[in-house]
């Protein structure tokens, strides 16, 4: 762990890290882009989850929701990862010492695994591909898991400044 922390301190002390941390506007603007990117990517995932739970846009086929929203979810994620990476760059050591940041990374990984399982296993089954009106309960559970995990990601992210080491 001390090796990782030493590395984090080096990242933070690099030219870009210091530039972001010391600029009056860079840090808040990157925070703002992180927020907007997450509203689009995670926000559209929330709406997709509500569709999988069968409580939102019931008459729109699940495959349409998945396919039509995908480019915007991915686009939003690119903005989130770039801005998040820059924020980490400027405060790497502090981030690694915050339990909220570590928890956030774990929940992102779990949400990602859930999405992959849904995409490559559940969504490949005939009832989903053929847009049956009655979908298997596994679809609903995948939506609930995604909704819960992404909520935890947002909660942990907001708690980072409140839960320092």
């Amino acid at each position, binding site marked *: 762990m001390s090796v990782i922390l030493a590395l984090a301190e080096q990242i933070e002390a690099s030219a870009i890290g210091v530039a972001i941390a010391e600029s009056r506007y860079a*840090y*808040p*603007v990157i*925070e*703002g*882009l992180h*927020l*907007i990117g*997450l*509203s*689009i990517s*995670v*926000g*559209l995932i*929330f*709406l997709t989850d509500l569709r999988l739970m069968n409580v*939102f*846009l019931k*008459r*729109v086929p699940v495959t*349409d*929701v998945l396919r*039509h*929203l995908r480019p*915007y979810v991915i686009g939003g994620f690119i903005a989130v990862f770039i801005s998040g990476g820059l924020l980490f760059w400027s405060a790497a050591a502090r981030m690694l010492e915050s339990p909220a940041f570590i928890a956030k990374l774990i929940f992102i990984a779990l949400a990602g695994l859930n999405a992959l399982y849904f995409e490559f296993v559940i969504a490949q089954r005939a009832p989903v591909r053929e847009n049956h009106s009655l979908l298997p309960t596994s679809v609903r559970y995948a939506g609930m898991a995604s909704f819960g995990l992404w*909520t935890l990601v*947002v*909660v942990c992210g*907001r*708690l980072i400044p*409140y839960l320092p080491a």
Partner: protein
Amino acid sequence: MTTFEVLTWIQDSALAHAISKTDHLVGAGLQIIHVMGLVALLASLVLISLHVLGLAFKQQPTSEIARESTRLVWLGLFLTALSGTLMFVATPKLYFYNPAFQLKMGLLLLAIVVQLALFRRTASNTTATPAFARVSVGISLAAWFSVAMAGRMIGFI
């Protein structure tokens, strides 16, 4: 009563003390509700916009998509307004004189006016010309994203 006296009165009220004098995680809880509300608002708005622009669910009637999504937009606005008001009540002087907060309130007013005057008409009216629809969707999204950006700046300015 001057503005400053009003702000002092709010800051000394029982509600303000209840929020600010308890655990600091109460403030964090309000921030979390504020973010979740904003995510609901912006994502639903993006969804209606994509539909109006013909980028998603073209085969579905606009009225249906707009009705369900608009409900979530208002739910998101309600959650952000409620949590935001409580945050303001806890430390009104901190917010009132903050230039990012002042900018955010101006942009919020603009976004709501745009929403009621342009966007609602576009989302409910299938005969709106594509050019009018594109412009009103663009202005509306720009206004709401600016509100989010200005809001995120409050803590840093």
